[in-house]
């Protein structure tokens, strides 16, 4: 579903991704862990071309999205993204946030888009907040709206960049529950997260990134119980 060949990314002289290759199968859930500055966010953002790759290939559903000739907007409709800081549109209600892209991108009529939005808000447990503006919602609620907003485009892949790290601890659970439910329904997902319990529970594979490379990958069991790379070991010993 996602195949990455030798992806590199430079910011000026700084090489942030130094040749990443991986393959992610349909319905697979991959959690990326690694120290701050290792390039996790950058890698995720390359997967929907919010960052342009410097070199290498990213093939999603058979389409090479690094090819400048493809219509990236079509690719992005298939790849939803959820951000650390939610990025809800503050001038719109929760419902409008979710309904906007179906209306403007998919050209769905308003009532249809709002019906869809309502059902998605229901699904993340926020039907009663549909007409609230983001500033009136807690962080956890905002993040759940953001997930509903991404789902409204019916993506085949979901990317999460530290979806719970801007949240107060008591709200982490409600957001992780929603992400877990997506995993159980078979959504293909790539999640950058420091929530190791969550990673162990839902992920099929874990990527450990450091200094712009995937240094180690394996099942949660392999990574957590028996890490091979010394850097993985020392990272895990620091955070567990």
């Amino acid at each position, binding site marked *: 579903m996602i195949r990455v060949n030798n992806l590199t990314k430079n910011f000026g002289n700084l090489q942030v991704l130094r040749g990443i290759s991986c393959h992610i199968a349909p319905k697979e859930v991959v959690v990326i862990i690694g120290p701050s500055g290792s390039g996790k966010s950058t890698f995720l953002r390359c997967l929907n071309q919010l960052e342009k790759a410097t070199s290498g290939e990213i093939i999603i559903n058979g389409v090479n999205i690094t090819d400048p000739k493809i219509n990236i907007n079509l690719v*992005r409709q298939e790849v*939803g993204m959820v*951000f650390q800081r939610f990025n809800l*549109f*503050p001038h719109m209600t929760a419902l409008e946030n979710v309904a*906007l892209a179906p209306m*403007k991108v998919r050209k769905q009529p308003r009532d249809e888009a709002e019906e869809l939005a309502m059902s998605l808000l229901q699904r993340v447990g926020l039907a009663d907040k549909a007409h609230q503006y983001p500033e009136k919602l807690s962080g956890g609620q905002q993040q759940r709206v953001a997930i509903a907003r*991404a789902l409204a485009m019916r993506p085949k892949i979901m990317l999460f960049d530290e979806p719970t790290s801007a949240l107060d601890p008591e709200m982490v659970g409600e957001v992780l529950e929603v992400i877990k439910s997506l995993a159980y329904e078979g959504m293909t997902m790539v999640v950058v997260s420091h929530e190791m319990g969550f990673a162990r529970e839902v992920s099929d594979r874990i990527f450990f990134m450091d200094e712009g490379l995937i240094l180690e990958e394996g099942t949660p069991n392999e990574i957590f119980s028996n890490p091979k790379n010394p850097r993985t070991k020392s990272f895990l010993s620091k955070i567990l």
Partner: protein
Amino acid sequence: MDLRFDLIWSYIPLLLQGTKLTIQLTVFAVAIGTVIGLFVSLLRISNFKPVSWVAKIYVDFFRGTPLLVQILLFYYGVPQLLGLDSMSRHVAGIAALGLNSGAYVAEIFRSGILSVHKGQMEAARSLGMTYAQAMRYVVLPQAFKVSIPPLGNEFIAMLKDSSLVSVISLPDLMHTGRMVVNRAYRSFETFILVALLYLIMTTTISQLVSYLERVFGKDDQSQ
């Protein structure tokens, strides 16, 4: 000290007519300025250097030179350049004021757009929206809201600066005031009345702006 407002009483309709022209010039200038300003602000933030460069030259020219010079340039200079005999005072006046206003409004919108967190554009693009859609539905509505107070200030500044068109004998409030002084020989009374009329207009605009701020500012806040 003798104040003889009675001597200028009969000129009040004339002054009101000048007031009307001042309002018309200002409204036109700000309307044109807003359209140009929006357009230029979008060029200005373009990643394509030549485009943002042209926009910057426009903005720098109209903000960096006296409006008086711009008005004279339009009234006398442009007809010469185009080989015309003359140019309508109204057209020249509105063009100069509008283009001048456009430069200021462009900077207002530009900083409004830049004040919107870049995560907003990214979130919109990640949903598959085009750059234009993301601008229109997500970034500009937020940018516009923060632009309301400075736009109000620009409106007020334009109203006052429009008095400079009296230099090309457009019968605005300022020019009419000078005419009245020449006829009635009552400088103080006339100019204090002119000043008062300007003051009424500027305070009306400030009221309007704070009203708009309340209307648009009530439901939400940028993150």
